[in-house]
């Protein structure tokens, strides 16, 4: 066999030398007549190929007359041209969703026309249009069924990608692969990305146990063969500001309200004289400041006939709109992509990315966060006292013990986090025969982070943030993983019309790492400058441990078999079978099997529709498959002595051993059963493109971490926890609809408008732990009843509290209503009336019920781009409808500041039926009820941009191929009724994997750091 291969190679060379031929030069233009650089130009009958230069020109030498040349470029329709002379000009139609575009599906790829799963591709064009600071933002509102939320608006905060709803209270983020290896979007420079493929249905079954939450496949850019060196440089500079300021009371309003509240409570007026108080301090104005963001990246690419290369670097630095440099983010990336043809049928491709992240952060999104304090600190207090020191918020019960001067809090916050990460892959592709291809590839991540937290010795005058002894905590973490894939692919056409592709994959994954942390006390001079353990030589009192460490090692071995079949490109079938073995499960249930099948019928290929003048393309798809999930904490199947066992002997702490999490040896795979039926069609000369899907995703044997179990098992001991169990079922079903219309009105004007909508109906089908629910989250202070539930028949994470029924207007109404005394305090006119849900004639904790949920019922995206002569304009918007949010940023104490809606409070019979009275006395009004649940539906104008591209004739003169200048606004405006900072605030409690956030307990707003509005100007330069 080897010798035959060799022969083939030799013959290629000889034919090259002996043919009668001439040199061809050509130019490739895009739809608007501009030259198109980077187009692949290939001689169909040989391996000869090249790429167009910056001015769209190419040269092929020694091509025989009549040769067919294939021109292809992502986002454009592939064209074939027959060589008839020495000069040719090709105009390519910029069909952004070309059906011949090759879609990466994981271990394999397929032409878009033939894809049978629910798959959406986001091209580099969209990313280049949007200029997102983070890759995830490119999926916001652009892909039907995908919801992207930020864990915070602060620079560098993590983002969650949810595909087709939320199916688990564990990790519900989609799994990301970069060029085939498991990766992390947050460390990528967006402009390095060629395409993002989102697998939403059973198509993701090739990833078996990783596929349940959907799959995001990232393909990075590579250099093009036979192309001159091309340099692409992008630079932008922007300024950020808060997208919202909440309306709180000014000093006079506050003083008047307090007087009324004290009077109602039978206490002396705190502000007998309110004149001269004026507006007082606007704390939000004090903490929100414009902050810069600067983003630069450069890529140099090119290639010879055997080698391709791409070298890129980027630098992003972004300061926070709160605290400026105290919430600072910096991301540097460097990337090298190299491709080499070792032989005509053997290719080596490598891609290495180095990322450096530096992030400093403030106390955000929690009780006692900077924003929480800014909202709750009264406007009557000045920023600084007479001595120029930050004013202390008084230490009295009315102000609570968590509320401190937010500016002092910012100033006294010192931390630093640095991550250095190297990741990449090497693949070896060997076309053994025309039919048989073998790929071997290894991808890896290795990251080292160091962090430092300085707790300055500080007194806020009797608050919980007072620190009597300075300390510095330092941590170093090392994380590694590799993914080794071996892929064999066999492709053949039988009897002319039956196309078969069989793929066999073996993949091995290992992740391991360790962390080490330590604390030193008594930092010299109480200063950040000296905050290092080498100088902070104090230790904890006797027996205290100032050090900690952890290690982990998890692995997976998987085999995938895949069979693709089509008949004449009309009837398409794709069967996938995957076997996974994972260390997340015990020996008895270590192995899982995941089958799926997808099928399609390209109706437009049938004779009765072929060449129909209106309907250009019509395909029906259907898919069903079982996928898995193993995203739980390590070793949950076995009992380990990692609990806390600390007591005091002889007056000093002593540490022993105790059992940690309760093991569950019966743990097994979570099963995601995904059904999808869809249709793709194109009308009116491919101008109108529609994709519609209906899906039902049922998650069975749901792995519920820390599921509540009986306390007799000891799970509430220090350091212990409830087991993880396969004990639930959640169903998400809904419609997805995406429509895109593009048209070219004239040579000067074209436009594209896209709209997508997804409905999601989320329901918990089962929680198998006798109580029928699990609960989490937190509301208020000292309220032990948890506000969020995962409960049968309700959406996951639904809010659970009292239902209100207006305000008691008078004593008679109170007397006529079931007693509310069991809630804790006496009721008076002006207090909230709660509904007697169970009808037992008394209002108590058993009257709590479902009062909303944080999951949107409908999400939408609207994207518009226009090109007129040299001008281009784009506007992207997205919306979320039906999501509720809990207002938990109010400290509900007597002397704290309030939102200005309290101005419409109840002050006497008939004054208000929504906002209760104010009083310093005891009331039940602060209990968790639907009074605190608000509709957080919103429509956000995410991106508006206007660009100008320099005339080609002019740019040619100065030796560049393209220069575009633009201005834009990110997060321009949000339409919402929600009163808090950001209706898109979805943060949940951290899961026990210490990475992801739980969907149970999410949607509770403690003063969410809003996503900033960014005004940007920038340039794109190619030469």
């Amino acid at each position, binding site marked *: 066999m*080897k010798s035959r291969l060799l022969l083939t190679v030799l013959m290629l060379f000889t034919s090259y030398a002996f043919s009668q031929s001439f040199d061809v030069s050509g130019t490739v233009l895009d739809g608007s007549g501009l030259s198109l650089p980077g187009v692949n130009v290939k001689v169909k009958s040989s391996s000869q190929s090249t790429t167009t230069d910056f001015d769209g020109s190419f040269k092929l030498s020694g091509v025989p007359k009549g040769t067919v040349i294939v021109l292809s470029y992502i986002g454009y329709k592939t064209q074939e041209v027959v060589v008839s002379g020495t000069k040719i000009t090709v105009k390519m139609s910029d069909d952004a969703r070309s059906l011949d575009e090759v879609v990466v599906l994981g271990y394999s790829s397929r032409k878009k026309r033939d894809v049978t799963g629910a798959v959406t591709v986001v091209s580099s064009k969209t990313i280049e249009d949007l200029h997102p600071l983070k890759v995830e933002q490119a999926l916001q509102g652009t892909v039907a069924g995908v919801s992207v939320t930020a864990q915070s608006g602060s620079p560098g905060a993590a983002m969650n990608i949810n595909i087709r709803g939320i199916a688990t209270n564990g990790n519900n983020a989609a799994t990301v692969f970069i060029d085939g290896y498991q990766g992390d979007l947050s460390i990528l420079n967006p402009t390095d990305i060629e395409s993002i493929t989102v697998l939403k249905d059973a198509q993701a079954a090739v990833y078996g146990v990783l596929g349940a939450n959907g799959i995001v496949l990232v393909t990075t850019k590579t250099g093009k063969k036979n192309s001159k060196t091309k340099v692409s440089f992008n630079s932008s500079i922007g300024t950020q500001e808060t997208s919202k300021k909440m309306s709180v009371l000014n000093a006079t309003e506050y003083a008047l309200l307090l007087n009324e509240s004290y009077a109602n409570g039978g206490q002396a007026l705190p502000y007998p004289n309110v004149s001269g108080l004026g507006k007082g301090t606007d704390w939000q104005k004090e903490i929100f400041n414009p902050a810069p963001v600067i983003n630069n990246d450069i890529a140099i690419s090119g290639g010879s006939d055997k080698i391709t290369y791409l070298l890129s670097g980027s630098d992003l630095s972004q300061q926070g709109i709160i605290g400026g440099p105290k919430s600072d983010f910096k991301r540097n990336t460097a990337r090298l992509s190299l491709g080499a043809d070792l032989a005509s049928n053997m290719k080596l491709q490598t891609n290495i990315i180095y990322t450096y992240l530096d992030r400093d952060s403030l106390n955000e999104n929690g009780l006692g966060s900077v924003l929480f304090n800014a909202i709750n600190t009264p406007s009557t207090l000045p920023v600084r006292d007479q001595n120029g020191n930050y004013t202390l918020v008084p*230490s009295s019960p009315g102000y609570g013990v968590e509320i401190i001067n937010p500016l002092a809090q910012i100033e006294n916050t010192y931390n630093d986090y640095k991550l250095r990460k190297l990741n990449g892959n090497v693949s070896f592709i060997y076309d053994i025969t025309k039919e048989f291809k073998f790929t071997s590839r290894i991808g890896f991540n290795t990251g080292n982070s160091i962090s430092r937290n300085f707790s300055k010795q500080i007194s806020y005058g009797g608050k919980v943030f007072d620190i009597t002894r300075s300390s510095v905590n330092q941590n170093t973490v090392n994380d590694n993983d590799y993914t080794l894939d071996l892929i064999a692919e066999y492709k053949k056409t039988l009897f002319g019309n039956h196309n078969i592709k069989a793929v066999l994959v073996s993949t091995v994954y290992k992740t391991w790492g360790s962390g080490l942390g330590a604390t030193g006390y008594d930092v010299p001079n109480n200063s950040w400058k000296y905050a290092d353990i080498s100088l902070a030589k104090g230790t904890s009192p006797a027996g205290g441990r100032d050090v900690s460490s952890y290690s982990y090692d998890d692995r997976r071995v998987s085999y995938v078999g895949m069979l693709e079949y089509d008949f004449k490109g009309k009837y398409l079938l794709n069967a996938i079978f995957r076997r996974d073995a994972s260390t997340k499960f015990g020996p008895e249930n270590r192995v899982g099997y995941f089958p799926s099948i997808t099928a399609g019928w390209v109706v437009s290929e049938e004779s009765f529709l072929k060449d129909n003048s209106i309907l250009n393309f019509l395909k029906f798809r259907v898919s069903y498959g079982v996928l898995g999930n193993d995203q739980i904490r390590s070793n949950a199947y076995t009992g380990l002595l990692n609990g806390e066992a600390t007591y*005091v002997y002889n007056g000093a702490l002593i540490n022993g051993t105790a059992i940690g999490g309760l093991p569950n040896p019966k743990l097994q795979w979570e099963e995601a059963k995904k059904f999808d039926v869809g249709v793709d069609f194109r009308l009116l000369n491919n101008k109108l493109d529609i994709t519609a899907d209906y899906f039902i995703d049922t998650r069975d044997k749901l792995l519920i971490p820390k599921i509540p179990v009986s*306390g*007799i*098992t*000891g799970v509430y001991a220090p350091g212990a926890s409830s087991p993880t169990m396969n004990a639930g079922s959640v169903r998400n079903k809904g419609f997805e609809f995406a429509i895109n219309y593009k048209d070219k009105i004239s040579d000067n004007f074209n436009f594209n408008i896209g709209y997508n909508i997804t409905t999601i109906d989320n329901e918990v089908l089962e929680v198998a732990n006798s109580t029928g629910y699990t609960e989490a989250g937190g509301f208020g202070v000292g309220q032990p009843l948890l506000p969020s539930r995962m409960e049968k028949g309700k959406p996951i994470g639904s809010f659970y509290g009292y239902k209100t029924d207006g305000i008691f207007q008078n004593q008679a109404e109170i007397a006529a209503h079931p007693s509310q005394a069991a809630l804790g305090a006496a009721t008076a006119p002006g207090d909230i009336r709660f509904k007697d849900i169970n009808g037992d004639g008394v209002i*108590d904790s058993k009257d709590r019920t479902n009062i909303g949920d944080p999951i949107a019922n409908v999400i939408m995206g609207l994207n518009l781009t226009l090109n007129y002569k040299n001008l281009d304009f784009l506007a992207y918007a997205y919306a979320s409808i039906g999501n509720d949010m809990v207002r938990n940023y109010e400290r509900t104490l007597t002397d704290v500041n309030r939102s200005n809606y309290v101005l419409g409070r109840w002050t006497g019979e008939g004054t208000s039926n929504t906002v209760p009275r104010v009083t310093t006395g005891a009331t039940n009004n602060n209990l968790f009820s639907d009074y605190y649940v608000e509709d957080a539906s919103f429509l956000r104008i995410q991106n508006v941009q206007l660009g100008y591209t320099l005339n080609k004739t002019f740019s040619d003169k100065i030796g560049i191929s393209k220069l575009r200048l633009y201005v834009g606004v990110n997060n321009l405006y949000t339409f919402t009724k929600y009163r808090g900072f950001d209706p898109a605030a979805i943060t949940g409690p951290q899961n026990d994997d210490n990475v992801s956030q739980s969907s149970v307990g999410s949607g509770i707003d403690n003063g969410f750091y809003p996503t900033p509005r960014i005004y940007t100007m920038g340039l794109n330069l190619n030469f």
Partner: protein
Amino acid sequence: MKKYILNIGLGIVLLGALSVSCSDNFVEREPVYSIDSENYFNSESDYYNALIGAYDLLQSSYVNVLLGEIASDNTLAGGESASDVVGFQQVDEMTHTSVNSNIKDVWNWMFAGVNRASYILEFKDKTDFAGKNQILAEAHFLRAYYHFELVKWFGAIPLNGDKRFKLDDEKKIPRSPVKEVYASIEADLLYAVDNLSPDAPQTGRATKGAAQALLGKVYLYQDKFIDASKVLDKVIESGKYSLIADYSAIFENAGENGKESVFEVQYSDAEGAAFTCLQCSEGNVAVGFNGIRNYVGPVFDSGYSFNVPTPKIANAFEVGDKRKDVSILDIVAWAAANNATYGTGYKHTGYFNKKYLPRQGDSNIGDQNLTNPNNYRAIRYADVLLMAAEAYNRGGLDDAKARTYLNEVRRRAFGDTNHDISASGPALTDFIWAERRFEFVGEGIRFFDLVRTGKAAQEIVGFKAGKNEIFPVPIEEIQFANGNWQQNPQY
């Protein structure tokens, strides 16, 4: 050259095929740097270390003391507002139901303690070493301690011998009647009495005297007066314990683990703590909760103003009783005398539980309200004396001896013999019970004394006889048990 490359290519293919064949062995790995809980107890130090884990849960009994005191007529819940720790407020008002996260804490944490003690006993025969009986006896003592708390709070509870409860045991193992629970506690304590050293190997660990005193208490709770008097006399006759002459010295830091301490729960300020895991704190969480709200002044640190004494108890002390000023802080007088300021919380009475208030001078590691180092004097010698007095009196055994023990306590309280009691019979019983109230105010004992003596309904507002003697089993537990356990009457 080409051939060479082709060979490499084929080599990679072969290597790939080989690595595939290594297959599932790859996922058979041991967890790194960890110890399997079921392959433990291989050395003396393993037992010793596991015992520390069993002691650890004593610290979480702060909530038993705090909530037990609030339940009594001694104190009100207090706090910031009516909705501040609703569970405390409800117990204070006697409106608590099976939905009460603080009562749930008592259940969960005490069973966690039972679990850790049983873990040691489950493997008691695995490895032999000298001195093993001492460690096993401590495990028995601790299990008895936790079981006694549970039976006081909830009545009948499930028992599982020397084994940990497994998942689903709640659906199979019934709640043993109170009598059986007490039998198990007695058996554990008898073992402990026989095997514990009279002197603790390290301060903080259980002693023979501690086991005897607890056994005496357990007998007394069952009205087994003869058994109680015998075992309590052994504590008294051991000569190891005595009353501290200055009552006020007992509750200060310097007075910890003193001569009067028969058993003391140890706390420390050496480690930080957070509200997310109160049972993880090494400090006495109850102390911060008792603290004076927004206090600025000498001696004390501030806190959350829970568990505030009522005027009823403050005014009940006899004139000349030195215990009043040690037990109850009159904040108005104190503030005036010491130029201190304070805030008023919910149900402010003007009084604070002075025995267990946060003191200045500890390391204040965050959250400083949760890391107060005040040890809880679980069984004081005064308690032993008064229990013995009660046993001799109520058992009709020896009123003279009962008076001697009672008056020993009273002489310290008043500093003279003028206040000696000379009554006998039921009148003496009333004096002994009254003495307990003043001697132990603020120590979480009163509610259970009222219940066992049948006086709760007359002393506690809202107390319903036949219902409130015990607390409801947490609703979740009833649900987990899936019909196996019934809720306590009338809840």
